[in-house]
């Protein structure tokens, strides 16, 4: 499979504990004939491949995977883990992403064989526990958002968005308006998944500018509202971390033209128990359980993006949904006018269960405390950074705020990117940079509620020190990470998407 000499498997070359050398790939650790796999004794007759597979389908040579010892596999993955920052190592103030602490009790809650070893196609009699759990979660999510019913199928926020847009279509379609309503409004500060989902939902995006307070420009909104509008997608607090104070007026205006309001729940962490999208006038809400409800992000996923709706949209929800019969047993029920299935099975079930364990642990009181502390932390940090960084919309924020390195760039040459890389050297993850797009040199900071005042102070201190530092240091950063700044341009220019595609000279 490869002619390169296998590299040293037991060597911690890549463990940062041991220096800054790189970790060989699994393929480089591979040595022909080496093996980890083993199989149970089954007593099944040992027919050969030729006896089992028609010749036309049988491959000539084994599929090359890798040939490593279990010992080397373990060391490889352990060393890779040492090259990875994570919430469990330190603060992760990545705006919009809500990188809060993920309680360990949730890991254990979902580890039970009674949840993990349940086949998705098993008859309902065998899955009553799961169905009860999902129904309980659905009910709680409706209470939290002020909605009537929900689907747990969407496996992430973006999938929830698309689900919501398809619900919109179905709703307007039922009213015979599907052809006419072509546009969906989204603010210019919106997350990229919003416009992308609008396209996939078969709609056109109409952008709504923000006003100088960072909120939806009401006049501009009015201009764009017409009876060809299917709806509007908003997040509140918005991506600047600001609460759309005029949300009731916005809802009124959109509803006025027959449009629906979609709530992007990525920022729900700010308002738990304070207010509910349903109260604000939203019709459809997705939640990122991997943000607000502490499902760990797993390096990029899995998440869960349930969608909750008002009662008039409930008949269109994806199915099947777990519903309690009057006798108390649960059944899978297809909503009357369901838009259909969104996921192969029932969504990211174990992630859903984790979120439910988190909600149970917090309870109503604990969830409210989440938002209290999240908002307080953000505001406190904003106060500390004032004067050092530009705060383009410097008024009370919710759970996050956007700072800017515009002035810093002018005076010292330090860009948002450099600030981010310098922060890595300080033992913190970087904020989100260059988002939202309407703020130049944006640094979007979301401390989350699980960071202590002491951690916040250290973070503020680091950010202030970084700003006082030279631009040169900034450009050299990070100098203490497993690798220095990576050449992103080269990665795109000379695409090496697999180890097999590596140019020989590397």
């Amino acid at each position, binding site marked *: 499979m490869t002619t390169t000499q296998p590299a040293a498997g037991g060597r911690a070359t890549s463990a940062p504990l041991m220096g800054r050398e*790189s970790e060989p*790939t699994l393929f480089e650790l591979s040595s022909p004939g080496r093996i980890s*796999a083993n199989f149970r004794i089954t007593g*099944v007759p040992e027919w050969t491949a030729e006896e*089992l597979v028609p010749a036309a389908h049988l491959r000539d040579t084994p*599929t090359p*995977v890798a040939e490593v010892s*279990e010992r080397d*596999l373990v060391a490889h993955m352990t060393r890779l*883990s040492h090259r990875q920052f994570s919430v*469990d190592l330190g603060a992760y103030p*990545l705006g919009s992403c809500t990188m809060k602490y993920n309680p360990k009790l949730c890991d254990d809650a979902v580890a039970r*064989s*009674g*949840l993990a070893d*349940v086949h998705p196609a098993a*008859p309902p009699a*065998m899955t009553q*526990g*799961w169905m009860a759990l999902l129904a309980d979660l659905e009910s709680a999510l409706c209470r939290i958002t002020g909605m009537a019913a929900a689907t747990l199928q969407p*496996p992430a926020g*973006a*999938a929830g968005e698309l689900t919501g*847009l398809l619900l919109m279509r*179905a709703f307007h379609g039922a009213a015979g308006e599907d052809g006419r309503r072509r546009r969906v409004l989204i603010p210019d500060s919106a997350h*990229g*998944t919003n416009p*992308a989902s609008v*396209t996939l939902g078969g709609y056109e995006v109409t952008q709504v500018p923000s006003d100088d307070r960072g909120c939806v420009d009401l006049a501009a909104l009015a201009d764009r509202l017409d009876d060809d509008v299917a709806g509007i997608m908003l997040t509140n607090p918005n991506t600047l971390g600001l*609460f759309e*104070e005029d*949300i009731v007026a916005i809802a009124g205006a959109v509803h006025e033209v027959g449009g629906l309001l979609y709530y992007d729940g990525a920022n729900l962490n700010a308002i738990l128990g304070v*207010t509910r999208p349903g109260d604000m006038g939203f019709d459809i809400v997705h939640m990122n359980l991997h943000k607000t409800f502490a499902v760990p992000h*797993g*390096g*990029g996923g*899995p998440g869960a993006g349930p969608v909750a709706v008002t009662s008039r949209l409930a008949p269109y929800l994806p199915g099947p949904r777990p519903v309690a019969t009057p006798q108390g047993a649960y059944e899978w029920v297809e909503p009357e006018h369901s838009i*259909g299935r969104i*996921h*192969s*099975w029932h969504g990211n*079930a174990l992630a859903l269960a984790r979120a439910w364990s988190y909600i*149970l*642990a917090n*309870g*109503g*009181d604990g969830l409210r*405390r989440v938002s*209290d502390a999240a908002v307080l932390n953000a505001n406190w940090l904003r*106060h500390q950074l004032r004067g050092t960084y530009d705060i383009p919309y410097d008024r*009370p924020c919710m759970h996050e705020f956007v700072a800017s390195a515009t002035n810093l760039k002018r005076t010292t040459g330090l860009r948002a990117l450099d600030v981010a*890389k310098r922060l890595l050297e300080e033992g913190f*993850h970087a904020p989100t940079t260059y988002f939202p797009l309407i703020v130049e040199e944006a640094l979007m900071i979301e401390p989350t509620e*699980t960071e202590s*005042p002491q951690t916040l102070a250290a973070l503020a201190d680091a950010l202030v020190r970084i700003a006082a530092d030279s631009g040169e240091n900034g450009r050299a950063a990070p100098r203490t990470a497993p690798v220095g700044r990576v050449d992103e341009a080269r*990665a*795109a220019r000379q*695409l090496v998407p*697999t180890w*097999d595609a590596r140019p020989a000279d590397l």
Partner: protein
Amino acid sequence: MHFVPHTDAELAEMLTSIGLSSIDELFDAVPAALRLAGGLDLAPGLAEADVAVCFDAYAAANRPVGRDFVCFAGAGAYDHDIPSVVGRLAYRSEFVTAYTPYQPEVAQGVLQALFEYQTLVCRLFGTDVANASLYDGASACVEAVNLAVASTRRSDVWVSRGLHPQWRQVLATMAVGTGHDLVDVALDDGLSSWPADGQPAAIVVQSPNYLGCLEDVAAAGELARSLGGLLIVAADPVSAGLLTSPGSLGADVVVGEGQPFGASLSLGGPYLGLFACRKEHVRRLPGRLVGETVDTEGRRAYVTTLRTREQDIRREKASSNVCTNQTLMAVAFLVHLGWLGTAGLRELALRCARGTRYCREALLAIDGVEPLVGAPVLREFAVRTPVAADVVVERMAEEGFLAGVALGEEYGEGLLIAVTEKRTSGEIDAYVNAFEKVVR
């Protein structure tokens, strides 16, 4: 219980230092009319031990597969042995509690793991590129169709009924938004019977298909090429240990459900959408792609690349809306498949095929049990039973078996049965005995 570290004193001090006197003032921007009176309508928080009690109760109300409920169900979700290394490595907290690798310098762990995962997916499927995962098999298939539609600028998509029916349902749900037409292609004795002519954007075939049959992928590929469409193959990563790869048979895009490697059954999720394609489609690849590059000192490094395809940059023109994917499941896939290795993957596939043949032959020896279709199968098969399939499933549960998955009307009913490497001949014999009893 909550996870806010602040003491009341600290909260008060922080509030004062920013000129506020109460927590409520933090929410001044929220109009009074919108404030939730009385708090959330949820029970108060529970202690960790009480959450465990609740979850024990949920778990106890399920019937998990295992020694007392032996699994012969598959249909896209397979009961394979997962080696201990998966839980011990993929679930290390550095992988579990990291975000998407936006800062590559401190995310080389996840990035390199994904790079290796991409390499493995390409090796399994015989393709040039694979992305860093999608939600599940169905969503990968949706993205493949979208890619084909965008690339061919055509709107008809031929979908075999051999494709998992739930995937087809998801395709149908999503097609309402994207606006292409799904053309239902029937099975003939277990194999897709393609129209001879047309202008398909893509031909979508699964092999082994839903009924377990091996499709003629090469022929589908030729047809697609001759008609100017793309060939999308839904493949099984386990069967990849024995079958000629879809890529080498002409597939433009290969998708699959990655669950068999590293994911427990878990009522269907989180699983793993595998997505791979030929190089020429890379600019339309949905989702994240990790590439190799170097750092400022010339050391090998990894980074997400060709990012202009993605929603955060391309917005409404992005190739897909996916953002959060299933990275952790991809890491688990890497560990499981890495542990199996070259020889182990083949052995695994072989063992599944052996158990399948052993079980199938014994079942077919039962009076009244007949093959549903005639095409050759590999690791899953369907039978017609003298008693309705759902009744068989019900009765077999009492005997301690999850007998399989009852097929719907569109397949002419029948029972779909999967035998993995986990099943011993003793279990299979007991299953067959019980089967004989319940279909009498």
